[in-house]
C-alpha cells in the first residue's frame, strides 16, 4: 500500500455551482503533498471532502484503504486535521484541551511532550484566547497530532502570519515531515509549496491544472529564467542571441536582459564568450522562475489579486 490517499473524479456541487470538478490524484505514504491555488479554487472543499467533513457529490476518496463515503468515522480516527480557522474551547488550558481531544480518540497522550514538540510547553497553563496567531496555529497542529495520525491535513497553516511566524511554522512542519508522517497541505503561497512539498497540484477554478514535483513544474513549464548583467565593452546583441537556451535579448540602460529556458547551459556559454569577445561581465543576476510564474503562465492570472 504505497498510496495512502487515492482520489478519483472527486466532485462537489452546490446546486448549479461546481466547487470541485472531477479531480483525481494520489498521495504516497510519507509524502508531503501540496495543493496550491488562489482563493476559491476549491482547495479547502477538496480537503474537507477527504476528511469526511463535507459530503461528496460524485467520485470517491479512499484513505488508508477506507472509502471516506462509507467509513467516515474510521477515516477520521486515523487523520489529524488543522482547519483553516479553527478555534478551541476557551474554558480549558492547553493541557486540558489536549487531554480532552485525546479522550475523543480513546487515547492518553503525554500532553507536555506534545506541547514541547510545537514549542508551547511553557504555555500549558494558558487559555487559547491568550495565544498569538502563530501560537494558535501551532496549538492547532498539536491537537491534530493528538491521535498520532497517519495523515496530517493542514489547511493554509501560515495564512495571516507574519514572516517570522511563517518561518517557525515551516520549521515545525519540516520536523513532522522528518518523522515520516504524510502531510497534505493547502496554501496560496508558492514559496511555501516550493520549500515544503514533495509534489504539488496546482488548482484553479475547481480543477487541477498540473501535478508534479516543484522542480519538474518549473523545468517543464517552459517558464524561462532571466539573466541580467552589464559589460564594460559593448558587444552586439546578436552574439548573445546565438548562445544556447537564449530566447530573447534586450539591451537595457547599460546592460542586457536575456531570457533563457535553460540557464545551466546558457551561463557557461556566456562566460566562454566573455573571453572570446574580450569584455568583462559585472552585476550578473539570475532570477529563476518560481511557481508564481508557472501559475501566471498556466492561467494568465496572478495567484493573489
Amino acid at each position: 500500500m504505497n498510496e495512502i490517499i487515492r482520489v478519483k473524479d472527486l466532485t462537489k456541487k452546490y446546486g448549479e455551482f461546481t466547487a470541485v470538478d472531477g479531480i483525481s490524484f494520489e498521495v504516497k505514504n510519507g509524502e508531503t503533498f501540496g495543493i496550491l491555488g488562489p482563493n476559491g479554487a476549491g482547495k479547502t472543499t477538496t480537503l474537507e471532502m477527504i476528511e469526511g467533513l463535507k459530503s461528496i457529490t460524485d467520485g470517491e476518496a479512499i484513505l488508508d484503504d477506507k472509502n471516506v463515503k462509507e467509513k467516515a468515522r474510521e477515516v477520521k480516527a486515523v487523520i489529524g486535521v488543522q482547519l483553516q480557522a479553527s478555534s478551541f474551547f476557551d474554558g480549558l488550558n492547553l493541557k486540558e484541551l489536549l487531554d480532552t481531544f485525546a479522550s475523543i480518540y480513546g487515547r492518553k497522550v503525554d500532553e507536555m511532550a506534545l506541547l514541547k514538540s510545537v514549542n508551547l510547553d511553557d504555555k500549558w497553563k494558558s487559555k487559547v484566547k491568550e495565544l498569538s496567531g502563530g501560537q494558535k496555529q501551532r496549538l492547532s497542529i498539536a491537537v491534530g497530532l493528538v491521535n498520532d495520525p497517519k495523515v496530517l491535513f493542514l489547511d493554509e497553516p501560515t495564512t495571516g502570519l507574519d514572516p517570522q511566524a511563517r518561518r517557525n511554522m515551516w520549521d515545525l512542519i519540516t520536523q513532522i515531515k522528518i518523522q515520516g508522517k504524510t502531510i497534505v497541505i493547502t496554501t496560496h503561497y508558492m514559496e511555501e509549496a516550493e520549500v515544503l512539498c514533495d509534489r504539488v497540484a496546482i488548482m484553479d477554478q475547481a480543477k487541477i491544472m498540473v501535478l508534479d514535483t516543484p522542480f519538474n513544474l518549473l523545468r517543464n513549464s517552459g517558464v524561462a529564467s532571466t539573466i541580467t548583467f552589464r559589460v564594460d565593452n559593448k558587444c552586439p546583441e546578436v552574439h548573445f542571441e546565438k548562445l544556447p537556451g537564449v530566447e530573447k535579448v534586450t539591451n537595457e540602460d547599460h546592460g542586457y536582459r536575456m531570457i533563457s529556458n535553460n540557464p545551466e547551459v546558457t551561463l557557461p556559454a556566456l562566460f566562454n564568450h566573455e573571453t572570446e569577445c574580450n569584455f568583462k561581465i559585472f552585476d550578473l543576476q539570475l532570477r529563476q522562475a518560481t511557481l508564481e510564474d508557472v501559475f501566471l503562465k498556466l492561467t494568465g492570472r496572478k495567484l493573489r489579486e
Partner: protein
Amino acid sequence: MPNTTLTLTKSSIKMFIRNKQSLFFTLFLPVMIMAIFGLIGFDRAQKMDIGLVVGNPSKSTQQFIDNIKQVTAFDINTGDLETEKQALKDDKRAIVMQIPDNLIPDPSSKNPPSKQVITVYKNISQEQQAQAAISIISQFLDKTTLTITKAPALFELKTETINSKNVRYIDFLLPGIIAMAVMQMAVFSVAFVFADYKEKGILKRLLATPLKPFQFVTANVITRLMVAIAQTAILIIMGILIYKTHVYGSYPLVLLISILGGIMFLGLGFIISGIAKTVESVPALANLLVFPMMFLSGIFFPINSMPGWLQSIVQYFPLTHFAHALREVMANGAGFSLIAKDVYWMLGWSIVLIVLANFTFGFEEKRV
C-alpha cells in the same frame, strides 16, 4: 468508548464553572431575586393607621380608648384634629376619629346615658383598611352598649384554632424561583455556549474527529442537569436557613421535577442555538421566549390573579407546569398523583422541544 463521554463531561463541568457569566445567571441572580422579594415580604399583615382626636376623656372613655389601642391590627396615633386631618390628607391615616370626652357614661352615674356621636373621617384611597377599621370599632361599640344596658348576650362566636400550613409569600415564591433559575440556566447556558462553539468553528473541528455529536451533547446535558440539581439544592437550603421555609413533600420528587424541567428547557436552549446565526442574536431570541414566561407563569404572583383570557393562554406554558408541580410538592406536600398532570405536560413539552431541536440544531453549518 464510555470513557470519552466521561472525560468530555468533566471538561464540560470545568468550562461551566469557569464561565463567570453563566455562574451569575445560574446562581447569583436567583439568590438575589429571592433576597429582594424576601425582604419586601408581601405577606406581612398591613396595619391600619388610625388617628384619634381626644380632648380630655372621662375615666370610662379613657378605658375604652385603651382597649382600642390593644388591637394589634391598629396603628394608633393621637393628636389634635387639624394635624390628624392633615395626616389623613397625606394618606398617612386610614381613618381619623374624633372621640367625645364623655363617650362612655360613668357606671356610677345615675343619669340615663345619652346618645354620643363619634365623627369618623375616612380616607377614600385606603377604602379597604378604613372599612375594616370602622367595622372593628363598631363591634367595640356594640359590646359596650350591651355591657351598659345590661342586656343578655344572645350569640357567641366560639372560635377554635386548628394548626394549618401557613403558606407565606416566601413559600409560594421559592418553588417558582427554583423553576425560573433552572429555566434560565438551561436556556441561556446552552444557547450561548453552543452558538459560540458554532461561530468559532469548534463544532466543525469536533466533526473532524471520530466523536459522535451525540456524545458531546450528552456530556453537556449531563453537566447542566447536575447544575439544575445544585441550583435546586442551594435555593432550598437558602430558603430553609434564611426564610425558615419548609419542604412538605418528598425531596427526591422535587429533584426529579427539577431534572425534568431542566431537560425540557435544554431542548429550548438547543433550538435557540440552532436558529441563532451569531452569538449576538442569542439574547434577543432567548428573551423573546423566556421573559414572558418568567412573568406570566405564576413565578411571582398566582396565575388566578390574571384576567381570564390570559390565564387560558399561560396555563399551557412549560414554566407554568414546572413551577406549579414544584410548588404543590414543596409548599403543599403533594405526592406524584396530585402533580401527574403537570408532569405529563412537562414530558409532552420535552418531547416537542427535543424534536424541534433536532431540526434546528446540528454540528454542521447549514449551507443555503
